[in-house]
């Protein structure tokens, strides 16, 4: 009796082992491998989307305003708007410069008490994918109040998507301020967009906006120079 009970238990145990094996529980290692492989691929993809932290060692100036405005303009749509305060004409000026002898001068009239901005842009198809950052220098005279900020905005791709920098950089009266934004895949420098591989391949417009968010009231020149890319 004891022997037959033991035999039954052994048979039932054997059947359970077989069932579990057929169900795949015996392939624990095998099923884990693809998961690990998938995990590794995800990790690799995430790594690829992290911008490099290496220093910028090679820069190329695209616009230095030495021989005119090189295509930069105040967009026509902004000329009739009360919150856009750049006044035509835009000129190449030798008053101040951060590179060479000239810069682009924007005459602006910020009324204060409301959001207002001076915006200039160039419409040019550019493939910036070989570069890691886009940078430019901005100068406001010493008599300009503290509080003006600036950022760049790129228009990219077939849909002409308008992509602002995620932060604005404060201008320091009497000093050149350098603004720099990373354009590599995975950059966090852009608002509501994390750049992918295509982001920098099809840049169609570069805009620079200087803004007063209510407080600063200022009528006078703003200078922009040395719009460049770096890697």
């Amino acid at each position: 009796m004891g022997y037959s009970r033991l035999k039954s238990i052994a048979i039932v145990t054997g059947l359970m082992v077989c069932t579990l094996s057929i169900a795949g529980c015996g392939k624990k290692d095998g099923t884990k491998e693809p998961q690990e492989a998938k995990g590794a691929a995800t990790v690799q993809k995430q790594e690829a989307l992290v911008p490099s932290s290496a220093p910028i060692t090679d820069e190329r100036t695209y616009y230095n305003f030495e021989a005119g405005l090189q295509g930069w303009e105040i967009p026509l749509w902004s000329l009739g708007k009360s919150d856009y305060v750049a006044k035509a004409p835009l000129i190449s000026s030798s008053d101040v410069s951060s590179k060479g002898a000239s810069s682009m001068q924007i005459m602006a009239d910020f009324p204060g008490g409301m959001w207002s901005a001076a915006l200039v842009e160039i419409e040019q198809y550019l493939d910036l994918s070989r570069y890691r950052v886009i940078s430019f220098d901005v100068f406001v005279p010493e008599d300009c109040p503290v509080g003006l900020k600036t950022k760049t905005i790129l228009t990219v791709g077939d849909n002409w998507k308008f992509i602002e920098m995620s932060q604005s950089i404060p201008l320091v009266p009497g000093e050149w301020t350098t603004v720099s934004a990373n354009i590599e895949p995975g950059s966090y420098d852009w608002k509501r967009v994390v750049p992918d591989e295509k982001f920098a391949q099809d840049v169609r417009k570069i805009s620079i906006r200087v803004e007063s968010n209510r407080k600063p009231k200022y009528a006078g020149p703003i200078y922009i120079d040395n719009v460049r890319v770096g890697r």
Partner: protein
Amino acid sequence: MRKIILTVAIMSLVLTSALVHAEETVLFGFEEGLQGWEIPDWAYEKPDHVQQKISVSNAQANEGNSSLLMAVAFPGGRWTGAITEIMQYYDWSDYSTLACDIYLPADAPLGLKAKIILTVGDAWKWVEMSKAFALKPGEWVTVSADLTPGSIDWRRVQVDEAFRTDIRKMDIRVTSNNKPAYTGDIFIDNVRVIK
């Protein structure tokens, strides 16, 4: 002594002027006709191309006494272009810049833009300038583009040494992107390459 100084000064000016001009080669001044420029057949068939005819005119000139006149009818409200071209093989290895001058009469609206388009290489690749120049009513505007390796003035092409060695066609296009409506003349002159 004064005479000698004056003579030397004048000679220096003349020589400098000659050297400056020697750096440029005018390809088309339109002094003796259209020199092969035409409106391409396909452009007559496209509703968004609004050039009507071209001719030589002495109403405006920025070089010599005449220029190419392109009669256009931009309706406004949509993208339209006016184009003229010349089919000719060029090797511009010795030159760094391509340029032309465009004049818009004073009564024309703001907003029209112009660019040069090249057709290059065995594949007859259509290569537009990467940016367009805003035309200013009542003024001559120079449209220019860098031809040297690494230039960013051309769209969707990596400009290398070979780029400027095999030019097959040159187009000049004026566009209205939605806003400006304009019916009238546009003048093109002094199409040139610069060393």
